[in-house]
């Protein structure tokens, strides 16, 4: 079956956007800060060439390379999320341990959820179905850990740095698309193949657009704007407290 024009565009745009992200990261000197994410990006660019070559050899080779890539990618995504945890919490000495504990607890909890999810899928004879089911479970795990990262930052009032936020948001978008695609594929079986084949690359392309945008606009040295409320604000505080005291 020949790919449609839309599929070809999405397929080609993936490695092009990933290359742009990798180059922008080098240009913006972000590689040292996010080495795993850069590795993940470079891995995709290289894998595109490998997958293309494999598709020219035989379907069997392509199948093995594709699913091998998917398994390595699942691990890499988890490592990228861990890198985000380290980047967000690691710089603050007092709360570094909180980041570690939250990541480990979330990963452990989501691992249990994923195992339960994989077991509830029932026994499937086809290797592809088992792999899709595994992929679905791992994406749920990764989404859960990512959600915990966002939530912890929100609760603690930590303001994300621009590019770190971009990576996390893009990763979230991509994982959502992949989880939905894998879940539908696992339920619909072979009938969901075309949906799986379209939804997953589209979400990946959207995530890459997001990463390219955040990498391009990343400002490693943000300039905060300041207002000077020190003295006046103290007076306001006093006034409000006086009011509070007279009321109680």
């Amino acid at each position: 079956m020949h790919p449609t024009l839309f599929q070809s565009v999405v397929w080609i745009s993936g490695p092009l956007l990933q290359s742009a992200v990798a180059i922008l990261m080098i240009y913006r000197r972000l590689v040292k800060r996010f080495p795993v994410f850069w590795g993940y990006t470079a891995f995709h660019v290289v894998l595109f060439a490998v997958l293309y070559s494999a598709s020219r050899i035989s379907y069997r080779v392509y199948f093995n390379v594709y699913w091998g890539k998917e398994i390595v990618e699942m691990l890499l995504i988890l490592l990228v999320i861990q890198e985000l945890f380290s980047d967000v919490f690691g710089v603050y000495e007092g709360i570094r341990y909180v980041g570690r504990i939250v990541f480990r607890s979330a990963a452990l909890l989501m691992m249990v959820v994923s195992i339960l999810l994989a077991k509830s899928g029932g026994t499937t004879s086809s290797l592809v179905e088992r792999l899709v089911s595994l992929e679905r479970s791992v994406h749920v795990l990764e989404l859960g850990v990512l959600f915990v990262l966002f939530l912890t930052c929100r609760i603690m009032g930590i303001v994300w740095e621009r590019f770190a936020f971009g990576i996390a948001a893009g990763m979230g978008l991509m994982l959502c698309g992949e989880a939905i695609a894998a879940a539908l594929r696992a339920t619909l079986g072979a009938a969901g193949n075309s949906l799986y084949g379209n939804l997953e690359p589209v979400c990946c392309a959207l995530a890459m657009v997001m990463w390219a945008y955040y990498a391009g606009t990343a400002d490693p040295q943000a300039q905060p704007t300041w207002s000077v409320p020190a003295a006046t604000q103290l007076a306001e505080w006093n006034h409000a407290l006086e009011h509070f005291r007279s009321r109680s």
Partner: protein
Amino acid sequence: MITVLIVLLACAFLVFLALSVRHRRAASDTVGLYRQLQPVYLPALLNLLSPDDLAFLRASLRHSDFVDLKRQRTRALIDYVRRINTNAKVLTSIGAILRQSPAPDVATAGQLLVSRAFTTRVLAARTLLFLEIELMLPFFDTNLASTIQAYETARARLEGVTPSTLATRSR
């Protein structure tokens, strides 16, 4: 069933992501963050905590009146600690923004501010729990000293990094 659940969870995550983008934009505005700071007049709070005053009231009032008064005092303390907790969250955000400053010492000050503010939040959360217990059991006494001290340290850190110092150091 599981497919529906996963699709729903993924969609909910996408909504949460969109909200986070909006929230991040709002949280990066330091002027807006300063406006979120709530008044906490520490001398009044310390006055409320005076053990001598409490002992005097305990000795001079009837038991039921003293319990009523102590409950009122606990409610006022809860209000103070909630404000401290909110302010500590704002200080964390300000510290996180400061950390991105091009001036290394301002960035270090921001880093320290986040750590102090976080310690304050943990202590405030613990104190709030104890105060809620005190509200139910008036003879239970909560110690606020560590929370107030942590808050003072965090606030002092913020005052140490004034805009004028920022301007000079950024140059």
